[in-house]
């Protein structure tokens, strides 16, 4: 596929009907993987389709989400934050209250049940901030499966508490020193492991990215966020929100919130990318705002890359958003104009982190703080009578050391 240089997108009637049979969201997605893995991704696709249609599987998943993860997560009216901005009413979808402290567990629970169903006996995963690694290690402990988590050596250093948590949960954390030693390199190493251990290993991808069927599967498992939020806001306000907002790295928490609202034309959709030190500095992680389409990790999507097509390092204070790509469904939603992708810098996100702590008594993950950072503009645009739902995708305890360092404090 040629990279779509001049997208002339057709707006579909049904946004929820994607991907197509080839795993494509418009020009994006697909299965660009080494031949050794093709039979495995085909098997996974078939196994997932069967599980998705199986009421027994869905009931088992629902049971674990209720009793183990703690769903539904609350939709909380952030009264003081609303008053602070003086615009639209702000509701927070409290994914940080899930077991393990982020939305990541929703997907991990779904995929671990699928892995068991497929008879896989070894789990591998990649992680950036460590949230997905912790969630994966957690479900592996719960089901007694050995777990190897690949994590960039740089991230191991800046997310030490999560590394320790994974070890406590029985997982082996393998620091990755190749390339830029961050999330993309951890994903390369996980793929290398998978291609080497094809018979027993299940690769539990944490983002709505990578090769088909991962983007659709992860989205489906995360879409419980949006389904609950939709029901909860209808109950609280008697109507749909005017806007939904989430941070976007690979984009799993965002697509989980967005997807059930895609066909509600009156609901504006905002993703917030990590602008790092600023989009104009070149040191950021904003694939849509600062990249262009290409192929990496099995899919066609927006990527940070040089003129030649070499992948560039992403830069963000948030390890969870520090990825040079974005899930293919976001790439497509951007091109067709259904969602708007904004960005927030490290500094703006740190300010939003502190503000939420002070006004609402909630420490947000620094990832989620990127979404919070765009509330001034979004609440203003939506206006005083409006309603905004923001996905508070993770809790911020893991970030206190990094935040302190940026504030020049010692703890």
């Amino acid at each position, binding site marked *: 596929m040629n990279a779509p240089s001049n997208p002339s997108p057709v707006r579909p009637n049904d946004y929820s009907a994607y991907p197509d049979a*080839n795993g494509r969201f418009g020009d994006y997605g697909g*299965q660009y993987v080494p031949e050794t893995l093709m*039979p495995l991704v085909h098997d996974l696709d078939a196994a997932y389709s069967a599980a998705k249609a199986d009421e027994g599987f869905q009931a088992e998943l629902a049971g674990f989400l209720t009793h183990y993860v703690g769903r539904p997560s609350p939709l909380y009216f952030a009264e003081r934050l609303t008053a602070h901005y003086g615009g639209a009413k702000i509701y927070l979808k409290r994914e940080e209250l899930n077991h393990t402290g982020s939305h990541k567990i929703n997907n991990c629970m779904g995929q671990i049940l699928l892995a068991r169903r497929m008879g896989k006996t070894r789990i591998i995963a990649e992680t950036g901030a460590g949230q997905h690694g912790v969630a994966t290690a957690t479900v592996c402990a719960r089901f007694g499966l050995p777990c190897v988590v690949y994590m960039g050596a740089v991230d191991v250093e800046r997310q030490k508490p999560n590394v320790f948590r994974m070890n406590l949960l029985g997982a082996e954390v393998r620091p990755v020193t190749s390339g830029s030693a961050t999330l993309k390199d951890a994903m390369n190493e996980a793929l290398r492991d998978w291609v080497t251990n094809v018979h027993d290993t299940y690769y539990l991808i944490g983002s709505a990215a990578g090769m088909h069927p991962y983007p659709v599967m992860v989205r489906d498992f995360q879409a419980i966020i949006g389904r609950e939020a939709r029901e909860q806001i209808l109950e609280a306000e008697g109507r749909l929100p005017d806007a939904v907002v989430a941070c976007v790295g690979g984009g799993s928490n965002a697509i989980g919130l967005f997807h059930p609202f895609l066909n509600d034309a009156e609901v504006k959709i905002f993703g917030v990318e990590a602008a790092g030190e600023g989009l104009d500095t070149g040191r950021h992680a904003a694939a849509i705002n600062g990249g262009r389409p290409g192929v990496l990790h099995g899919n066609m999507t927006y990527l940070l890359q040089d003129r030649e097509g070499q992948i560039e390092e992403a830069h963000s204070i948030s390890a969870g958003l520090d990825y040079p790509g974005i899930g293919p469904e976001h790439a497509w939603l951007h091109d067709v104009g259904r969602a708007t992708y904004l960005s927030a810098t490290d500094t703006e996100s740190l300010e939003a982190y502190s503000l939420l702590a002070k006004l609402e008594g909630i420490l947000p993950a620094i990832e989620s703080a990127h979404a919070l950072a765009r509330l001034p503009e979004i609440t203003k645009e939506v206006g005083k009578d409006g309603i905004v739902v923001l996905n508070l995708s993770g809790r911020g305890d893991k970030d206190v050391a990094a935040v302190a360092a940026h504030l020049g404090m010692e703890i």
Partner: protein
Amino acid sequence: MSKARIDARFAALKAEGRAAFVAYVMAGDPDAATAAKILAGLPAAGADLIELGFPFSDPMAEGPPIQRAAQRALKNGMTLQGTLDLARGFRAGDVTTPLILMGYMNLIVTCGIEAFARDAADAGVDGVIVVDCPPEEAGPLADALDAAQVSLIRLATPTSDDLRLKTIVRRTSGFVYYVSVAGVTGVKEADAAEVAPHVARVRAASGLPVAVGFGIKTPERAAAIARVADAVVVGSALVDEIAEAVEMNEDVTQRVLSKVSSLAKAVRSARVGQTTV
């Protein structure tokens, strides 16, 4: 014209009753000038075909040796166009040795698939292997390479069952590359006895010569594979020689070519006194 070069080489080797030795090197490793010298010396050292890698920042199917080779090359400024320049330079001095480019999809997409196919043909490239472009995604690339008369060479692997092989061999030409182990390049060792039935299967499905690569490091192993396959590919062991020579401050070209000679000799003598396959 280029497909013909691969076919002619395999036909000649079949007449000689021996397998081909295929040398893989990375373009620009350790630098463009040295890589050009290595390339030029490969046929005389015994390489029957040459695979020339074009470096990518995120080579997900490569083990550490080729990852590091790509990093050395990128650090020294190698590009896809630079790789094509190397190919052109090689072709100016050698009109018979098939030259195959091997790399990852993003650089080709960035270049433009049709432009890439045309440029490759112009540079005297005979075939292309794209590691992360399976048949499902290869339609436009296959069309463009067909139009440019360059072979699209596909990979078959230990995970390819008979049904999958049918998909793989469709629209492939020149030869099929059998990846002898499930894994990345240059880590696990290939076992000739295990590989033999798969080679036969791939040959039957494709009607094409079968090259075996991934995990062949020594002359002994190369000879064993040469008894069961139509071609033996060695890559990681060669780029490791480059890395060591750079580190020890030795003559890189001489060291790589001497390794090529010993491997080629082993491949050439593997079937002496044996009935041909």
